[in-house]
C-alpha cells in the first residue's frame, strides 16, 4: 500500500463522497479495487463472491463517508471493511455447506471443496494454489485474514494490526499458529 494509494488524494475523494459527490467514486474504486479484490479473493477463493464483497465494501464506504475519521488513511479502513465482509460471506457460505468452491475458470484452477479424497472430481491447474486453498480452508477466520494480508498483500505486521484492529502481539501469534497449522494440513494432504 504505497503513499500514492492512500495519501491526500484519498482524503479529498472521501471528503467529496461525504458530500454526496458520486464522481469521486470512480477514482476511489480505480485506486483500490484490485487490492481489495485480491484480499477478498485470497480469503474466499471464489471470484464472484470476492467481487460482490468488494462492491459491498464500496457501498459501505460511500454510506459511511460522512462518518469517516479523516485523520487516518483510507487504505487500511477499506481493507478492514473488506476483510470483515469477506468473513461474513465466508460464514454465510459455510452455513450453506459451501466452504469454498472451485476457483476461477480464468486461472485454470479447480480446487476440491472438502478435505477428503474426491476421485470423481479432477484437480486441474496449479498445484500450489490448490494446496494452499486446502490449508487456508482449515484456518480459523482471523488467522486466515492475517495470512491473506501478509502473504497476498505483503502487509507489514503493523499494517496488519492496524487493518484488523489487533495488537501486534496477537498478529504475530496468529501468523505463527496459522503457518504451523497450514504446514500440518499440507503435510497430511501430501500424496
Amino acid at each position, binding site marked *: 500500500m504505497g503513499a500514492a494509494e492512500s495519501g491526500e488524494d484519498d482524503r479529498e475523494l472521501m471528503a467529496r463522497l461525504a458530500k454526496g459527490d458520486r464522481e469521486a467514486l470512480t477514482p476511489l474504486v480505480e485506486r483500490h479495487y484490485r487490492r481489495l479484490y485480491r484480499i477478498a479473493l485470497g480469503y474466499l477463493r471464489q471470484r464472484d463472491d470476492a*467481487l460482490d464483497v468488494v462492491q459491498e465494501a464500496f457501498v459501505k464506504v460511500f454510506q459511511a463517508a460522512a462518518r469517516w475519521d479523516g485523520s487516518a488513511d483510507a487504505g487500511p479502513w477499506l481493507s478492514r471493511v473488506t476483510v470483515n465482509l469477506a468473513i461474513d460471506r465466508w460464514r454465510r457460505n459455510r452455513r450453506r455447506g459451501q466452504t469454498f468452491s472451485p476457483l476461477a475458470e480464468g486461472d485454470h484452477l479447480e480446487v476440491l471443496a472438502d478435505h477428503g479424497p474426491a476421485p470423481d472430481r479432477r484437480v486441474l491447474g496449479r498445484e500450489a494454489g490448490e494446496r494452499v486453498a486446502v490449508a487456508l480452508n482449515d484456518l480459523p477466520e482471523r488467522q486466515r485474514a492475517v495470512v491473506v494480508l501478509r502473504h497476498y498483500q505483503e502487509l507489514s505486521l503493523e499494517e496488519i494490526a492496524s487493518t484488523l484492529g489487533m495488537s501486534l502481539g496477537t498478529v504475530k501469534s496468529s501468523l505463527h499458529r496459522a503457518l504451523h497449522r497450514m504446514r500440518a494440513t499440507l503435510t497430511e494432504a501430501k500424496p
Partner: protein
Amino acid sequence: MILAHLRLRRRVSLHAAGLLFGREREETLAHLAACARCRAEHDALRAVVAAMERDPLRSAEPDVPAAVLAARVAREVDQTLVRAGRPRWWLVALPATAAAVAAALLVPPLVKQFRPEPRAARATIPPAEASELLEEDALARIERNLAREQAARYLNEAGDVLVAVAATGIDCDRKDDRLDVGAAPERSRELLEKRRLVGDEGGEAVASARGVLDDVELALRQVAELPSCVKRRDVELVQKDVEARQLLMRIRLMTRELEG
C-alpha cells in the same frame, strides 16, 4: 538450548514469513545455524510460504472494469436509499385496515341514526364498501410499486450480466482465441428462471417494460448457452446483438422509468 528453542519458536515462524529484521533476525539466524530442529521447522514453514507465493491468485485481476464497479456501487446506494425511504408495508396497511374496521363499526349506526326518510335507492357506494375499496386501492398501489421495483432490479442485474460479457477482454485460452465470461452464463440462467415472476406476474404495472424484458430475455438466453471460456466470435455475436437492440441504453432508461 531447549529454552532458547521455545523462546525463538515464534521468531522462526516470523522469519519464514519474511518479517524479521535487524537484531532479532541476526539472533534467529544464529540460532538456526546451531539448532537442526528449528532449521527443519523453518524450512517446512518456508515451503508453506513459498506455496502461497506461487499461488496465481496473488495476481488475479477482477473481471469487471473499475467504472462498471463504480456504477454498480452508485446504483446499490440509490436502491438502498429508495428502500430506506419506502414506508414499510404494514405502516400503510395497518392504518388502512384500522380505518376500514372503524368505518365498518361506526358508520352504519350513524348513518342509520341520521338517515332521513327512506327514499329511492341512490347510486352511491355504501361506506363500508368504500373503505374496502380504499384499502384495496392502497394495497393495489403497493403491489404495483413492488412489481415495478422488482422489474427494475431484474433489469439492473441483467444489465450487469450483459455488461460483463460485453466488457470482457480476459483470455482464458489464447491459442484457441477464447475469452473468459466468468459467471455470466450461470447468472443468465438464474435470471431466466426469475423472468416469469417479473413479466407475467407484474401485470399492468410493468406493461411498458415488456418489450425491453422480452429483448433482455433473448440476450440472456444467448449468454446462458455459453460456456465460461467462450470463443471470441461468440462473445462478439452477443455484443453485436446487444448493440443492435440498443439494449443497455434501453435497460437504463426503463430502469429509471420503473424506479420513478
